[in-house]
């Protein structure tokens, strides 16, 4: 049985259903990242686990023990907030020790716990300062320290990095991951940043409008998105989603789509999913990630199905490590990820290689993946 279990969780505010029956499992020591656009219910879900919001239906259990209706302090969880939520009138040491003080832990024990946490996070020299005297990154460490000192069964992180500047965010991200590897405690982490989700998670849950869109390992979410929303949300630059028309020819399937100033682009899809044949003559959405759409030399050598086609490049965006080339297929902008030194110029045609091993197809009406 999994460690953190969420069963058919529902939450309504007045007439608004914020969570519409969420089922999620995390194994012990897992790192679950809840990701989705603003208002998708991910923070509400986290607050429900914390006990800060009363749930309307369903149940949550940690380590086999149902925690619905328990006070936040009784759930054996610790939470790190987006704004850090450090008590402004207390010193760093006071902040870290406040929970223990409330629980009546004797002073020598408290000091020992503070010292060990301060040591782990390298905030020993800050213990006597007030939160207002700390930088953003230091506040973040103190907030994590306050959570660590509880030694809980589950850590909850509510967008902990979104108030930090870009460089610090990357550093803290690595630090959180290192901390997780070291402590092995189960973590539930909310973010709207899909890169954070990919880098940190052992399991990602994508939410939208209070519904779980898909959950799985980062690789599953990235390579096998269950629907258009997940495909579009995860990945940067986003997956190219091109409207194409399916044609059945003999045993194989081919797709064709509009191409600027040229004949329509026609690609045979030898490894097409079996469900695709049913869409013969109809329009579907062809999804291909920018890294699966490259220059000929940059194509994955292990790929079995690579199709090449000439496309008109409209814009070239060098990004240092890669160069992105934007073309237009099916009247949509399509981004190809090329080697940094690829021979490409705006306004010229070039041969692009489509790695069809990585191609995915979606039903435009339902948005669901065609399998």
């Amino acid at each position, binding site marked *: 049985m999994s460690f953190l279990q969420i069963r058919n969780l529902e939450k309504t505010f007045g007439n608004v259903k914020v969570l519409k029956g969420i089922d999620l499992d995390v194994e012990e020591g897992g790192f679950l990242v809840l990701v989705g656009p603003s208002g998708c219910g991910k923070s509400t879900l986290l607050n429900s686990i914390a006990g*800060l919001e009363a749930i309307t239906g369903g149940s949550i259990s940690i380590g086999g023990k149902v925690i619905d209706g328990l006070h936040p302090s009784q759930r054996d969880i610790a*939470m790190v907030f987006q*704004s850090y939520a450090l008590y*402004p009138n207390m010193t760093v040491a006071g902040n870290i020790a406040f929970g223990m003080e409330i629980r009546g832990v004797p002073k020598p024990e408290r000091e020992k716990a503070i010292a060990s946490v301060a040591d782990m996070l390298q905030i020993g020299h800050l213990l006597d300062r007030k939160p207002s005297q700390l930088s953003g990154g230091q506040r973040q460490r103190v907030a994590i320290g*306050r959570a660590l000192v509880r030694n809980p069964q589950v850590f909850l992180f509510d967008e902990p990095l979104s108030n930090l500047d870009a460089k610090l965010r990357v550093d803290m991200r690595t630090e959180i991951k290192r901390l997780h590897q070291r402590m092995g405690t189960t973590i539930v982490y909310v973010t709207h940043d899909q890169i954070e989700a990919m880098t940190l998670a052992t399991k990602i849950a994508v939410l939208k409008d209070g519904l779980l869109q898909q959950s799985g390992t980062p690789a599953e979410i990235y390579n096998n998105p269950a629907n258009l929303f997940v495909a579009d949300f995860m990945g940067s630059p986003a997956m190219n989603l091109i409207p194409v028309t399916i044609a059945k020819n003999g045993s194989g399937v081919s797709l064709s789509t509009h191409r600027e100033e040229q004949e329509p682009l026609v690609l045979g899809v030898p490894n097409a999913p079996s469900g695709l044949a049913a869409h013969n003559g109809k329009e579907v959405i062809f999804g291909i990630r920018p890294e699966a759409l490259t220059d000929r030399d940059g194509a994955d050598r292990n790929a079995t199905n690579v199709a090449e086609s000439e496309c008109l490049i409209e814009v070239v965006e060098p990004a240092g490590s890669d160069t992105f080339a934007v073309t237009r297929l099916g009247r949509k902008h399509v981004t190809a990820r090329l080697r940094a030194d690829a021979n490409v110029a705006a306004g010229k045609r070039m041969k692009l290689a489509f790695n069809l091993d990585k191609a995915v197809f979606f039903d435009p009406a339902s948005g669901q993946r065609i399998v």
Partner: protein
Amino acid sequence: MSQPSSDNATQVNRLTRGLIYIVLVLFAIYYLLPLYVMIVNSVKPLSEIREGNMLALPKEFTLDPWFTAWSTAQIGVQATGLKPYFINSILMAVPAVAISTLLGALNGFVLTKWRFRGDNLVFGLMLLACFIPFQIALIPAARILGMLGLAGTTRGLILIHVAYGLGFTTLFFRNYYAAFPTELVKAAQIDGASFFQIFWRILLPSSAPIIVVTVIWQFTNIWNDFLFGASFGDFKSQPMTVALNNLVSSSSGVKEYNVHFAGAILAALPTLVVYIVSGRYFVRGLMAGAVKG
């Protein structure tokens, strides 16, 4: 090219600055004049005042009017001076300010961080209390004080002032706590702090600016109140304001203006002290949250 024009700008700047200061000084004199008249005349013998020049400095300096006003002046029927009434006022104002401020803070806490169905309606009704004229409530208040057996006592006056102040103190604290991060309350809940522990340990220590504003506001209002003091106080509980009125408006005997001036200053002194001590925080507190600091 830019040098002369910037010189010109500083000159114009200086000129306007000078004009502004002249206007400010004139206004300051205008506002300080009454205080000057009161102080000057409170240290003159009565004969000098009768000569008719209120603005002149005293020829003969005396503190007798102050001592008379404080301890021997005829107030109503008794020659007690203002002293016992001053004590009455302190005994009334201090607890009333403390209780109404504390309850206001508690209300603000509940109305912003422990929201319940209809909380805005409750707040609206409490706000309404700020707009009820005192006179309307006089008779019901008298009835209630009578029923509680508090008529004519200092405790009765405290109750009235707390009830009347609650609308304002709740308004102040609610608006202050509305900007107070709710995540702090959540963090404290996870830490296991109870309702009152969160209030005492987290919220109140961060409320200094609004506490100062509320204390000044409440103290000034309660200390200066005349209507409730005159209506619900008896000889043992009448506040300073009522006593001052009795001193000044006594119809028998000679009008001792120097004693009246001294008494008026004595009556105004505590509010003045409160302003001078915490005025800095008052302005800061009023501005708090207006701009992002």
